């Protein structure tokens, strides 16, 4: 049995459309689980939002916490990256410092960029700007930026020799999914929280819409020196609707850096 010619004609344009018109991720987003799937069900980020400014009858319920507990005093989550003994020892040093209240190992407190992949937590909101050749992710937290080149370029040796917080990202479309590879990440950033990594870390992401306006980033971190196995985490973000917090604010972190401890 042969396929009727009119059916073939109908199929050609849809196949072309799928190949040439990727989804448009542009917009302002807020994370649904800013600290990753591992944090779901724990801490205030996973709970119901406190009410915005307004009047309540009677005394308000006491807030249980001011911020997520992030000083390491609860140890490592079973979902945290699995570290080699060398990097576990580094983590323990950082943990002791943080538990003592020190900001020595807190890049954010020093107004440094959060870096990849930690920056994809996007706790203060994210703006995505996209064209055919490049997609740019902006984090309100510390005004951090990363660019993903889609025009087929590859990281040069010059780039590989010059690691940065955001690293160097190249991507391509596989159907409706943006596949991104990030290299040239230097050791001063963290994988998540304050988990250290080596100069050999690379990050792979698969970014797609789960439904209109609901963006998912599946992140796989590989680091043969620091990790005993690749670490995977999933971030999801909801796109702001017009007029509803659809503008991010300038962060200008160094305003308060002059008297940083």
């Amino acid at each position: 049995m042969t396929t009727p010619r009119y059916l073939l004609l109908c199929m050609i344009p849809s196949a072309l459309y799928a190949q040439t018109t990727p989804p448009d991720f542009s917009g302002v987003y807020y994370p649904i689980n800013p600290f990753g799937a591992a944090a779901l069900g724990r801490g205030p980020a996973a709970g119901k939002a406190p009410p915005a400014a307004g009047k309540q009858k009677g005394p308000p319920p006491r807030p249980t916490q001011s911020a997520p507990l992030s000083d390491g005093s609860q140890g490592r989550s079973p979902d945290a990256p699995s570290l080699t003994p060398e990097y576990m020892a580094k983590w323990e040093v950082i943990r002791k410092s943080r538990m003592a209240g020190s900001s020595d190992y807190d890049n954010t407190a020093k107004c440094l960029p959060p870096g990849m992949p930690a920056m994809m937590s996007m706790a203060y909101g994210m703006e995505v700007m996209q064209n055919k050749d490049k997609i740019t992710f902006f984090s309100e937290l510390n005004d951090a930026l990363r660019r993903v080149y889609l025009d087929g370029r590859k990281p040069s040796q010059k780039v590989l020799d010059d690691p940065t917080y955001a690293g160097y990202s190249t991507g391509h479309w596989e159907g409706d999914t943006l596949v991104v590879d990030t290299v040239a990440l230097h050791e001063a950033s963290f994988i998540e929280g304050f988990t250290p990594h080596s100069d050999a870390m690379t990050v792979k992401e698969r970014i797609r819409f789960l439904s209109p306006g609901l963006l998912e980033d599946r992140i796989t971190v590989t680091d043969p020196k620091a990790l005993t196995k690749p670490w995977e985490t999933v971030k999801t973000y909801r796109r702001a609707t017009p007029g509803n917090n659809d503008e991010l604010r300038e962060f200008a972190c160094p305003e308060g850096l002059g008297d940083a401890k």
Partner: protein
Amino acid sequence: MNMRLIALSAVLGAAFFDATPGLAHHSNVAFEVTKVITISGVVKAFQWRNPHTWVVLTVDDGKGGKVEWAVEGRAPGVLLRAGWTKNSLQPGEMITVDFSPAKDGSKTGLVARVTKADGTILANAGPAQQ
């Protein structure tokens, strides 16, 4: 003057002129975030700036005197989305602040929520951020 003396002068100078307790930018790890305590006082200053906002409060010490507290709040962008503005708190107004105390015992804290005299609540996060 050698460099060590210059550095020492700078430290002493800062200590002399900075009467407000610890108006320095901290990481959250500087605070006991699992604890929340409450104080009421009069707003002396509200600094709407990054990376963290600040409320300086004058509080009765219970012995007929006054003490000053400086509590650190979320960034302006976060607070805007939670319903705050840069004019949300005015010098001279009485407020109640729920906050996490500093680990080092200084009169500083990390704001969980501010309640104005008329009962208006200024929270840390609005629904859009969840």
